[in-house]
């Protein structure tokens, strides 16, 4: 222990001797100035980075940042002015090279200077809100070099000249271009845009305006589009190589506008090579090109679509109103299918399966198919032909494809109920004559119709198939329980449920004794197992196979209609029969009888009967004999088929009348349904709703709907509102 004095230690700042040498700043600055000179003169190697940095640091520290900064500006500016002069002096093509070189130099210098002045960059400059060194360097370059009066315009025109050269096929130095353009971009997007891009776009527009004018005069549509596509791709490629990526959409817009949009209509409608010609000739490549180019311009695709639509409607209209083509329904429908295939291909190959075009195709088909009111009948006849023989030997997959195509045409029909009527008639004939190629195909089509239209549409059709099957079973049962009949003539009965089958007026004729006895047996058998039913023989729809021996011993098997059988069997008991005798004995109605005799007496190869006189037509005074001289190279001879045919005019009228009649209750049912749920509804809305409800069957006529409404008012189902005449009210 001691009495030593306590000493307080105080920490104090280390004190420099502050040298306030007025000349200090000056001296330091000149060192730096000198360094900048050296840097610009490519003599930087002799400099000490550390020393220069320290100098700059000190200046800023001692509050001489202002001086340093302004000094920098002055010095750099002076140097850039010099550089500017040397660039201006460059001749011709060397101009750009010199500019590029000096630019690179400047950047290197700028970097070094910035490094040296880093302290100022980070402290003085932000505080004094001055432009940072790097940016300053760029701005000074811009102002003193690029925007110098002697350089600015020359630079632009050189750049544009090079672009033009390239467009006319010359090779240019792309690397140099890229560097110069990049320089402009580095100087700021407004420099790039004002000093290059804007004029570039203007000049390009002029160029392409001229190009397109030149081409359109001498090229056909396909060639023009090829050229346009090439130019477009060129410009895109140019951008990737030496322009700002943001310029791509701008320059492509220019090309699109000048080469495509301005000439769109002229191209599309060009005679002999325009859109319509391309469609007719299936020019997939040209069409695809047109699609790709036109999709880039406003209204491009809709223009193509509209021209295609009106063309299609025109062709379609011709097709369905050309009397020649309408002579053969099967041909007619095949033509429709071919046309659809053609356009399906065009849309998938050239138009990228674009939905807009598919819709246009569908609406066009719907339009012209319904121009001809026989379309439903013809489509049914087409199907009949296919199911009768057309699909023979065709594989299952192919069958499905064909049926699906038919369904497609079916969908276009407005009068689906007319189709249903014909389809039923034709199906009945096919089933009853056993003339269907494939049961699976028949069933497959029914399923498709059911999917499309619902159970109601096909329930009766399915009933027909069921009847055929049931009849088979019934026949088996009949013969099993009547073994004594196996030696006699074979009876095959199809029992048809009334209502499922198309109605025919049934007038029974007089069957030959053997047959009528057999038929009676069947009748009692059937009624024995099905009480409460009524059977009526449809002798106008049956067929018979008869074995015949002629005068010279020729044996043939004749396949005939029931009527024909009745007539022929008479000749087992007589050699000669007059028309009247035959009429009396068989009870066949006159026109049917005449047709039946005609097919047996007047048709070559089927003339199993002979008549006197030998006139072409059957007269009521004629006499008929068996033709003992009958010959045929076939053993089996078919006389009289019940093939579905195009209807005659009176038949057509009758069918249409029946269709109209059938529609009335459907319309009424729709009205009642709607009114029952809505209770009160105005006139326009009823019309709209009823039309909508019936759309899947047929297009309801507003006048017809009105008639039905009035009829319902009269029968007290509906009433008009007392105050508002436009409203209808449902009467429970």
């Amino acid at each position, binding site marked *: 222990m001691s009495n030593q004095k306590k000493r307080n230690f105080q920490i104090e700042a280390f004190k420099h001797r502050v040298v306030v040498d007025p000349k200090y700043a000056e001296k330091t600055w000149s060192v730096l100035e000198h360094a900048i000179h050296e840097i610009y003169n490519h003599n930087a190697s002799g400099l000490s980075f550390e020393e220069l940095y320290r100098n700059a640091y000190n200046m800023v520290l001692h509050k001489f940042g202002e001086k340093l900064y302004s000094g920098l500006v002055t010095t750099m500016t002076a140097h850039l002015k010099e550089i500017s002069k040397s660039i201006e002096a460059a001749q011709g093509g060397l101009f750009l090279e010199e500019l590029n070189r000096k630019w690179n130099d400047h950047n290197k210098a700028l970097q070094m200077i910035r490094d040296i002045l880093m302290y100022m960059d980070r402290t003085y400059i932000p505080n004094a809100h001055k432009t940072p060194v790097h940016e300053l360097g760029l701005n000074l370059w811009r102002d003193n070099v690029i925007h110098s009066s002697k350089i600015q315009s020359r630079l632009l025109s050189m750049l544009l000249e090079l672009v033009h050269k390239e467009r006319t096929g010359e090779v240019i130095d792309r690397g140099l271009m890229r560097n110069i353009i990049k320089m402009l971009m580095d100087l700021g997007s407004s420099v790039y845009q004002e000093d290059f891009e804007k004029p570039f776009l203007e000049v390009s527009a002029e160029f392409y305006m001229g190009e397109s004018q030149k081409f359109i005069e001498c090229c056909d549509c396909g060639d023009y589009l090829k050229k346009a596509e090439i130019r477009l791709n060129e410009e895109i490629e140019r951008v990737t190589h030496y322009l700002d990526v943001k310029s791509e959409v701008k320059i492509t817009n220019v090309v699109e506008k000048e080469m495509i949009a301005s000439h769109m209509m002229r191209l599309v409608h060009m005679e002999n090579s325009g859109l319509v010609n391309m469609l007719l000739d299936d020019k997939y490549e040209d069409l695809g090109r047109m699609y790709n180019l036109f999709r880039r311009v406003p209204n491009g695709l809709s223009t193509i679509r509209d021209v295609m639509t009106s063309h299609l409607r025109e062709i379609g209209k011709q097709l369905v109103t050309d009397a020649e083509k309408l002579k053969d329904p099967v041909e007619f429908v095949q033509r429709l299918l071919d046309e659809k295939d053609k356009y399906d291909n065009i849309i998938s190959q050239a138009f990228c399966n674009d939905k807009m075009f598919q819709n246009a195709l569908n609406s066009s088909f719907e339009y012209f198919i319904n121009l001809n009111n026989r379309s439903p009948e013809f489509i049914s006849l087409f199907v009949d032909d296919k199911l009768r023989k057309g699909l023979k030997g065709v594989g299952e997959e192919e069958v499905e494809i064909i049926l699906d195509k038919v369904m497609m045409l079916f969908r276009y029909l407005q009068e689906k109920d007319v189709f249903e009527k014909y389809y039923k008639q034709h199906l009945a004939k096919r089933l009853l004559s056993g003339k269907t190629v494939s049961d699976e195909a028949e069933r497959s089509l029914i399923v498709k119709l059911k999917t499309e239209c619902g159970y109601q549409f096909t329930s009766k059709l399915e009933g027909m198939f069921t009847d055929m099957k049931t009849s088979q079973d019934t026949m088996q049962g009949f013969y099993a329980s009547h073994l004594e009949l196996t030696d006699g003539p074979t009876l095959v009965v199809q029992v048809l449920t009334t209502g499922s089958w198309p109605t025919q007026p049934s007038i029974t004729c007089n069957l030959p004794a053997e047959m009528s006895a057999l038929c009676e047996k069947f009748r009692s058998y059937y009624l024995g197992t099905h009480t409460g039913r009524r059977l009526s023989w449809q002798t106008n729809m049956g067929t018979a196979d008869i074995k015949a021996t002629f005068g010279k011993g020729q044996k043939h098997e004749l396949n005939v209609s029931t009527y024909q059988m009745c007539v022929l069997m008479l000749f087992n008991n007589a050699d000669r029969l007059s028309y009247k005798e035959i009429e009396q004995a068989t009870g066949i109605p006159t026109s049917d009888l005449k047709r039946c005799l005609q097919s047996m007496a007047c048709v070559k190869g089927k003339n199993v009967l002979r008549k006197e006189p030998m006139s072409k037509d059957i007269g009521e005074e004629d006499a008929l004999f068996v033709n003992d001289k009958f010959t045929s190279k076939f053993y089996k001879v078919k006389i009289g088929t019940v093939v579905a045919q195009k209807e005659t005019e009176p038949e057509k009228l009758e069918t249409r009348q029946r269709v109209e009649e059938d529609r009335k209750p459907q319309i009424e049912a729709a009205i009642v349904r709607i009114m029952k749920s809505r209770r009160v509804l*105005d*006139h*326009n809305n009823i*019309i709209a709703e009823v039309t909508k409800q019936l759309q899947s069957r047929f297009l309801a006529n*507003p*006048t017809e709907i*009105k*008639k039905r409404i*009035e009829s319902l*008012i*009269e029968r007290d189902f509906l009433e*008009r509102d007392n105050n508002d*005449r*436009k*409203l*209808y009210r449902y009467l429970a």
Partner: protein
Amino acid sequence: MPLVCLSSPEGIEALCSDLGVDYTDVRILMLAWKLKAEKQGYFTQDEWQTGLKALGVDSLTKLKKALPELEKEVEEPSNYEDFYIYAFQYCLTEEKQKSVDIESICELLNLVLGVQFRPQVDSLVEYLKVQNDYKVINADQWINFLRFCKEISFPDLENYDATQAWPLILDNFVEWMREKQS
């Protein structure tokens, strides 16, 4: 009250001559309306008595004097439609009858609407006689004739819209008129 044998058409004819009014005069129809007579050509005792009371008359002379007032009453807008509908129903002589034949309708139109809507009635009657879509007219069509006369400008038919809820017979009539005019 004079005893009048009214339960027969002859009785009514007699009444008419007493009143100095033709049997086919519209005022008889108006009287029937006022009396709420159910059967054409007949006034029952009840109807007669109730109706006369409503008219405020008790003698034939007073009845005759009351006829012009009756006319005015019928022509009041609130009554007119009622009278018009009554006129039609008055013609339904059979039980369950719902329509009236064209001939009678033409006469009725003349009688009931002829004064107020002469041009319309003339054209309509002409049309009804030449067309053959309809052999009879029902109540709905009848009431719409009146509405047609009241609402549609004639003869230009400018404001007629066939897509509205007018009965089809009027659509056809307008079409026929327009064809005639062109």
